[in-house]
């Protein structure tokens, strides 16, 4: 059963620490998205990749956030240094747009981050 896998599921850290979240997209999917979910803002797009190339990271605070895809099976989202306002659930999602296909994104279970 193909699914998006995210680690860690939960992370509690102190302000100023580095946080790295990892995502394994569904095999064969060519697009990967990072979303952040909070009560106040809902689902916000942070960054997305197509064929491992970053297409849009305008939703991401560049001074502390970075997103990469070292290979097709791994996407990472790093926060350095973390701040309490970064506390949220971070979702990774993958999809297949080959051949101009559009449609659903498959979401992981999320990484719940708490920054104290």
């Amino acid at each position, binding site marked *: 059963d193909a699914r998006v896998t995210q680690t860690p599921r939960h992370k509690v850290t102190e302000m100023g620490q580095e946080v790295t979240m990892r995502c394994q997209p569904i095999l064969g999917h060519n697009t990967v*998205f990072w979303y952040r979910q909070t009560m106040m803002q809902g689902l916000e*797009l942070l960054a997305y990749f197509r064929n491992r190339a970053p*297409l849009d990271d305008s939703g991401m605070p560049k001074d502390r956030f970075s997103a990469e895809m070292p290979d097709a099976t791994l996407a990472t989202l790093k926060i350095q240094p973390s701040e309490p306002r970064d506390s949220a659930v971070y979702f990774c*999602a993958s999809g297949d747009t080959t051949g101009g296909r*559009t*449609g*659903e*994104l498959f*979401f992981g*279970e999320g990484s719940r981050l708490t920054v104290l």
Partner: protein
Amino acid sequence: GESVGLHLPTLSVQEGDNSIINCAYSNSASDYFIWYKQESGKGPQFIIDIRSNMDKRQGQRVTVLLNKTVKHLSLQIAATQPGDSAVYFCAKGGSTLGRLYFGRGTQLTVWP
């Protein structure tokens, strides 16, 4: 710009009744619209989608209606069950392939 909004943040229905969740959008340059369901502690899950050249699409117990004239989208759930309790998001595809714009979500609560 792109925006998607929901009419009501919460909806409570009795088990067995039909539920209707509404959504409005601002930009018509969208090829498709999608409804997602998010249960507590989980990621959003795809329910049903509809292309912009369609007005209606039906799935199992769910129907999505698209009114392009008033830029309105709705999700109808027939015979709502306790397992339908979740947050429902509408989303629309933007001009960039694969990118989705999400609304804020409606919390559906089903009580016996």
